[in-house]
């Protein structure tokens, strides 16, 4: 090989190096299409002023699905009991108001996050040693046991009748929650924005990378010295806190809470939403929750007895034809477009 040839090989290699380094260095940067869901959420506020309570419920499910995405989509832990933390958050706020007369909304949210995180940490530390079916059953059992605890002390929890008529104090002591849920919608949207910002940071952090490593190959993670259990407990605790906040907002939005928040249905529903939207994709939670909630609303009005069939069909179509969810479809399409447009 002569000198100029060597030179060419070297510069080709340094170009390849630069390209590779650039890719990693840029991956976490903000991209414009990421504005879209937020613009839609703001547009909904102006265009659908009489559907704001429903809108808030959709945003709450987005938040709940986002918390599940951290553990299911990124770390690859399948759980059937995520409602446990939603329920704990919901009841923290409910009990604060009904039993202690404490109605300040934001500190109640923080309390809900903390209690849910505590329970997430405690149960996670114990059950994340297991995998597969065992883990599935243990997560399921967590939610059932919490629900039964509530049932046992129905004098405190209100049992299956729940805690009705929970009203919260004005936001920041100024903004009264109105009957049409306008203030509440913006409040929920604000909290979601904040939490999304956190989750996005985590997902693109080295810790987030380690989570995908655990999902991709846990044996390799052990072999390279990753403290897998600690990582899982950490993300489980964070996800529990976020689910707790979603539950708290649920109580604040609806002004009541019943033990149904712990139902298996709730855990299953949030998983369906996430799979529908696309796991491990950050915005899958948005797409899935919005599409699911809107269709559920539409189907249930169309056929109050038969609407679940529509949801079932949707799920079948998703797993058969869009196994990576709605977001996967969009990525596939834009990827193809980019290749066509490219050299």
């Amino acid at each position, binding site marked *: 090989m002569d000198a100029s040839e060597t030179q060419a090989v070297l510069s080709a*290699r340094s170009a390849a190096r630069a*390209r*590779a380094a650039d890719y990693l260095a840029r991956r976490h940067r903000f991209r414009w299409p990421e504005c879209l869901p937020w613009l839609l959420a703001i547009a909904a506020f102006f265009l659908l002023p009489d559907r704001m309570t429903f809108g808030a419920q959709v945003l709450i499910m987005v938040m709940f699905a986002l918390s599940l995405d951290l553990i299911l989509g990124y770390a690859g832990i399948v759980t059937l009991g995520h409602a446990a933390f939603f329920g704990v958050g919901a009841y923290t706020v409910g009990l604060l108001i009904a039993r202690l007369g404490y109605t300040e909304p934001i500190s109640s949210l923080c309390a809900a996050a903390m209690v849910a995180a505590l329970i997430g940490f405690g149960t996670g530390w114990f059950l994340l040693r297991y995998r597969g079916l065992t883990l599935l059953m243990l997560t399921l059992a967590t939610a059932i046991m919490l629900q039964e605890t509530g049932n046992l002390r129905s004098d405190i929890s209100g049992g299956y009748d729940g805690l009705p008529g929970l009203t919260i104090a004005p936001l920041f002591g100024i903004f009264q929650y109105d009957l049409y849920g306008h203030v509440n919608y913006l409040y929920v949207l604000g909290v979601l924005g904040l939490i999304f910002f956190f989750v996005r940071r985590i997902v*693109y952090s080295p810790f*987030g990378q380690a989570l995908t490593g655990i999902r991709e190959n846990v044996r390799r993670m052990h072999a*390279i*010295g990753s403290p*897998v259990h600690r990582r899982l407990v950490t993300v489980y605790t964070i996800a529990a806190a976020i689910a707790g906040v979603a539950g708290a907002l649920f109580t604040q939005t609806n002004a009541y809470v019943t033990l149904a928040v712990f139902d298996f249905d709730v855990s299953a529903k949030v998983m369906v939403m996430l799979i529908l939207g696309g796991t491990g994709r950050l915005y899958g939670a948005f797409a899935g929750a919005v599409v699911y909630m809107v269709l559920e609303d539409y189907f249930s009005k169309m056929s109050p007895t038969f609407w679940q069939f529509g949801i079932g069909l949707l799920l079948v179509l998703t797993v058969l034809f869009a196994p990576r969810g709605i977001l996967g479809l969009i990525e596939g399409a834009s990827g193809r477009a980019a290749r066509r447009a490219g050299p």
Partner: protein
Amino acid sequence: MTVPVLEVKGLNRAFGALPVTRNVDLALEKGARRALIGPNGAGKTTLVNLITGALKPSSGRVLLDGEDITALSQAERARRGLARTFQINTLFRGLTVLENICMTIGERDGECNNLWRAAGAKRSVIDEALDYLDALRLTDDALKLVRELPYGRQRLVEIAVALAQRPRVLLLDEPAAGVPSSETHLILDVVASLDPDIAILIIEHDMEVVFRFARQITVLVAGAVFTEGTPEEIMANADVRAVYLGEAIPGGGRHD
């Protein structure tokens, strides 16, 4: 005498009623080049699993720098400089080659405890990862997903990941297994040029490779150390020929 970097003392392990590791003693000095040979099912991979902590022994001890690490987890041992490659590729298949290496460096340096900084923001990590890829001629594949690579290239990633751990002891479990014979030389060249300070134990069936690479050889038969010695001693050992080498001596016949 110096303390061996890695020492295995009286290691035992059984699967059910089947003893797979029987009273194994083994030592690696700094910079050792030792081959572990033996018929299929002799318990070579199991021994690697016991040393790295992927399996727990029923009795016996593993020492790293003279310190007993038998009670430590696999991850803890890895953090102390004990790395291995797998007989069957065990990689992050859905991630890029570069991410596989960056992940390893991130865990090695404790970077992965960070929940806030962007993973790509530390240029030094990416640069170091690319150095490993450069050394193994994987730079052009840096942005490919591991599962898109041919098996032989994946074998190289397997080695790159182990190197990115900056190990003091490296256990290579049949690094060229599953690679078409036309490409094995690539992998074996890499193995031959590894840092002379790293203590290496290689499991390999190709006797030509073993005799070229190793300065010591341990023969494992039915879970127990049958004999050990220099390549010359092993080649001259009639018993070894009988149980194992029979048809695999360099130039003496086919390899399995």
